[in-house]
């Protein structure tokens, strides 16, 4: 059991911290949430800055502990979020890096790292949510192209994306997980229609995407035809272990703010509320330790259950984050009904945590079957 960092890691942290202190004050003001082109430019600009300072590849090349330090320090310093770079940096990029041909890697990876191209994810469909493998978007071969038709849902940043990592069905006779193929689709291809999808929080982070006979070159397929499920799964849990480090740091900051707000507002005298905040302190301290644990997990499995990282963390964290913002509502009292007060919108957003990227129900089944070895139901 060791919580010390190596001199190299401490050096990385010090240099990163120093650089952040220099660069952050020079950033342009944050764009309005509704100004999509400005947001794209802002997010890409930040990635470019990271790239030029030598931090672009931290997610792909560095050790988990270094990545953890990266997330921790950028969050602490209040640096911009990964934003529009999310899919490129944390999903499509690693997939291409692992499964792509040399030509594909050369074509797509540098623009992601340099902050030049935005990717979005075309996985979910109206009838394929938790059961992603039931996806129906079809692609038929026509010479050296695939012709793709169907619809996708919950595609974030679709309005400003250059590329879409797309899962399509290329063999409808094969078993569900077999006939799926991974394609890189240019978002400006004829036949692609994007419609913003407003969420219950009132924002339009997501979109629906309709595909009508969209032509995608066979050369832009990553991995073999009908092997897309495996190609995707290789990286679907990429970064699960440490990518939440920043969020946990952010939650702990919110928790401190809540306690100070409670003291200022007089509710601190209510022992029930105080103890609830104390419990949340325990909760997020533990989650932070779980992030650290997971960073060490990539090496040989030690104590505890191996492979436990992603789903265990997500189950606990989703619930903790919802409880954090419910507690915020208790601190705010009737003001929790005012969207202009802090944390109120976050409370609405936090409702998706037990659903997005695998519902808590699905996660429990994963933990039960893959970690604990319990049998599948008939």
């Amino acid at each position, binding site marked *: *059991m*060791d*919580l*010390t*960092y*190596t001199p190299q*890691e401490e050096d990385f942290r010090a240099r990163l911290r120093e650089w952040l202190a220099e660069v952050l004050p020079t950033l342009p003001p944050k764009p309005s949430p509704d100004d999509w082109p400005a947001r794209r430019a802002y997010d890409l600009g930040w990635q470019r800055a990271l790239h030029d300072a030598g931090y672009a590849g931290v997610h792909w090349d560095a050790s988990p*502990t270094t990545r953890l330090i990266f997330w921790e320090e950028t969050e602490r310093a209040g640096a911009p979020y990964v934003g529009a770079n999310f899919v490129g940096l944390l999903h499509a990029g690693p997939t291409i890096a692992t499964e792509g041909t040399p030509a594909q890697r050369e074509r797509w990876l540098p623009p992601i790292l340099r902050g030049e191209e935005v990717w979005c994810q075309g996985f979910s469909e109206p009838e394929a949510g938790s059961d992603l493998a039931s996806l129906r978007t079809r692609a038929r071969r026509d010479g050296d192209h695939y012709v793709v038709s169907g619809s996708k849902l919950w595609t974030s940043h679709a309005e400003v994306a250059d590329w879409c990592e797309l899962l399509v069905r290329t063999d409808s006779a094969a078993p569900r997980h077999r006939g799926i193929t991974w394609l890189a689709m240019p978002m400006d291809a004829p036949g692609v229609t994007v419609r913003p999808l407003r969420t219950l929080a009132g924002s339009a982070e997501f979109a629906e995407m309709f595909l009508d006979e969209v032509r995608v070159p066979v050369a832009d397929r990553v991995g073999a035809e009908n092997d897309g499920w495996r190609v995707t799964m290789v990286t679907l849990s990429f970064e699960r272990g440490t990518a939440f480090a920043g969020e946990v740091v952010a939650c702990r900051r919110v*928790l*401190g703010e*809540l*306690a*100070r707000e409670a*003291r200022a507002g007089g509710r*601190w005298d209510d*022992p029930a509320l*105080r*103890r609830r*905040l*104390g*419990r949340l*302190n*325990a*909760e997020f*301290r*533990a*989650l932070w*330790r*779980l992030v*650290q*644990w997971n*960073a*060490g*997990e990539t*090496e040989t*499995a*030690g*104590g*505890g*259950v191996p492979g*436990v990282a992603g789903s*265990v963390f997500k*189950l*606990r964290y989703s619930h903790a984050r919802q409880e954090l913002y419910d507690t915020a509502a208790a601190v705010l009292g009737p003001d929790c009904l005012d969207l202009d007060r802090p944390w109120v919108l976050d409370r609405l957003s936090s409702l998706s945590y037990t659903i997005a990227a695998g519902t808590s*129900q699905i*996660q*429990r*089944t994963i*933990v*039960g*079957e893959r*970690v*604990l*070895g*319990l*049998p*599948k*139901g*008939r």
Partner: protein
Amino acid sequence: MRLHPTDDQRALRDSLRRLLARRFGAVALRAAVAGPGLDRALWRELGAAGFFALRLPEADGGVGLGLPEAVLAFEEAGRALLPGPLAATCLAAGTVSGAATGETVVTAVDGGGLVEWLDASDTVLGDASGAVPLRSVDPLTPLHRVPAPASVGPPDPVAVLLTAAEQLGTAARVCELAVQHARARKQFGQPIGAFQAVKHLCADMLVRTETARAAVYAAAVTAGPADIAAARLLADEAAGRGSRDCLQVHGGMGFTWESEVHLHLKRAWVRSHRAGGVTESEELLAADLVAGAG
């Protein structure tokens, strides 16, 4: 940075697990329930294995290790439902003669006024005058109560952490027991663990256990009061709710006196009242949030 136990630490844990399996396995556990009393031979054997002297410097005849090793040892003790005033004796190693070797059994008056294993102990720390026996809910933890306990300061953080480690042991063990039963027991034509209702109960037990594990191990490394309080809350929850869920998974089978499950629940209840109880930890962690904020 690696929160997992090192190879040496795992070797220590494994050897203690083997010792306890040999000396305090299922048969011995049942015998202890039937005829309570402290097994002094086992106590000395634990002493010889270094259980009580792990943190004592080698110069003082100890093993010269740290809190992480002590936490792993107490996790194993919790797993095995090992009876006796383990934490008090461990804390007394180095000050009470014979405690380190397991010759002397040391108990202590807890802040809440309870004393575990008073009659079986050689030395009691604190003022136990007027102590009256309770009919303890845990058949393996005889209890006395001191009528008007002297007001004591905050509990020793190490005692809190070692208790949390024992709770972690229970949490891990009841999760294992539940999974074993859910795999073996068939109803409606399939193992009950194939039903989501049971499977998800087990998954939640694991989540609580592994979160508590991260908190307990980290607190062993930092020894910070807030980390220790957090470890305590998480481990208490994992042990208490885990034991109940394990009982639920076992159905009627868990309700027999012969089952190990209820012994974990009862011990978890006893431990949750040690060293100030959970409220004290919650208040410490609440205060920690505003510390230094003026």
